[in-house]
């Protein structure tokens, strides 16, 4: 017999809708974005940057080996970055491998079709969800930290609980959860959008302060890439936490809204 349990309403409809729609759109944007990156797999700081200039990050091939060059250090990444198996199984010299990009073989035009088409959808979903979450109190009640949660003792205790893989079955998000969700919702997602806009020459003309804010177009491109990396990092940790906390229970809650709590 399973332990006695009770069901509580964990996620409201707006959260569930946004979560899955955003996940799908973000996956398409990330994979088409990696293909766009493949067209010029070098990142620079400042306004300009091209083949004669020095990148701070570069993914390429040295002979038949894949290499990630980062601030002067070269890391062999054969098989994943720089050189990986192409569609025919033969090694192909591409920055990000075909399984991670849309489309799977080099096509900048199609990648832009997806990336620029999905961008307004991402922004629309984000603006709607943020506005709705302010209006219905989700942001204030569930995500913003409350009085006691700022205290170092509380954060430390929560951190130790996570390290011991002891996840609260409380109705509320714990403090690390709140910080992670806030970092995505009001940090990385808005930043990935505005750095994307800052790269557009038409936007740079209309709102030059936006591109200047990031220190130039190539800096905006670098920050855009770092934001995307941050979102991937969040995704990995998020999935690990869901698996550790009980994948069925967690996914069911995000689909139906109902969460089973042991009593």
């Amino acid at each position, binding site marked *: 017999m399973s332990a006695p349990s009770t069901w509580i309403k964990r996620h409201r409809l707006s959260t569930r809708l946004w979560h899955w729609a955003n996940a799908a759109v973000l996956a398409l944007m990330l*994979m088409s974005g990696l293909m*766009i*990156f493949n*067209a*010029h797999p*070098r990142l620079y700081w400042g*306004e*300009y*940057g*091209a*083949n*004669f*200039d020095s990148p701070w990050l570069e993914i390429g091939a040295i002979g038949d080996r894949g290499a990630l060059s980062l601030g002067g250090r070269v890391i062999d990444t054969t098989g994943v970055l720089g050189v990986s198996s192409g569609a025919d199984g033969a090694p192909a010299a591409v920055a990000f491998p*075909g*399984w991670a990009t*849309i*489309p*799977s*073989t080099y*096509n*900048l*035009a*199609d990648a*832009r*079709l*997806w990336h*620029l*088409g*999905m*961008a*307004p*959808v991402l922004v629309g979903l984000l603006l709607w969800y943020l506005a709705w979450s302010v209006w219905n109190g989700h942001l204030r009640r569930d995500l913003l930290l409350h009085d006691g949660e700022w205290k170092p003792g509380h954060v430390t205790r929560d951190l130790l609980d996570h390290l011991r893989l002891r996840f609260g079955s409380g109705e509320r998000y714990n403090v690390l959860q709140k910080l992670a969700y806030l970092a995505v919702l009001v940090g990385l997602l808005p930043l990935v959008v505005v750095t994307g806009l800052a*790269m*557009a*020459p*038409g*936007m*740079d*003309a*209309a*709102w*030059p302060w936006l*591109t200047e804010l990031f220190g130039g*177009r*190539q800096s905006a*491109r670098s920050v855009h890439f770092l934001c995307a990396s941050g979102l991937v990092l969040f995704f990995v940790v998020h999935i690990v936490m869901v698996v550790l906390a009980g994948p069925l229970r967690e996914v069911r809650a995000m689909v139906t809204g109902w969460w089973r709590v042991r009593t």
Partner: protein
Amino acid sequence: MITPRNTPAITRRGLIGAGAGLLVAGCDRVDDLPEVRDGLAELGGVHQRVQRLLGRNALAREYGAGAMSPMFRTNGNTEAGDPAWRQHLAEGFSRWALQVGGLVHRPLALPLSALQAMPQRTQITRHDCVEGWSAIGKWQGPRLGPILATAGLMPAARYAVFHCADDFGGDPYYESIDLIDAFHPQTILAWKMNDAPLQAQHGAPVRLRVERQLGYKQAKYVMRIELRENLAGLYGGKGGYWEDAAGYQWYAGI
């Protein structure tokens, strides 16, 4: 029947690999659906509308001489295959003339010397390639707007098409812009780059500069400007070589 023990069985690894392969193939198939492509293009059309709303007449940023790229890389063709262009190059473009025609009242033939004698605009701007790189250079030439005004546009004229001397595998390069960009103060026919006559690899004798759009709109080796009512019926009908050949956006402000 005896099954040899070393026959490769269905392994978890194999299944994951096959699954991933199917997923990738599925994604690529979705990517090829015309309905999907049209829908994505429709959604992407938001960018042009937003940019025109926020800054229809906005100027691209201009930089000081200290901000220029030490080296300005080339892309696309670095010379034109057209025999007439080769002849002009050998003659220093002394007998070359830019043709302006189509829906205009007074077709023009403007020698390089005439373009050089017109009021000049010099601008240090950032060239943004669709691939992601940028280079800052100095461009000089007459504004396109007054040239079109001299030719006198017919009321039906809506696009300026730039016919070029270069080609890819026999398909001529061409580009087009609407009249908002054609009459924009920074839209010039550059015959000078970084204080020297435009070099062959950068599009001699004249290269279009339409500063609020990506690099592929900056047509090199411009031979003829044609004013048209629409872009359909011209080559692939999408308004530019890369638009026709690969499906790049006609509006390249992003």
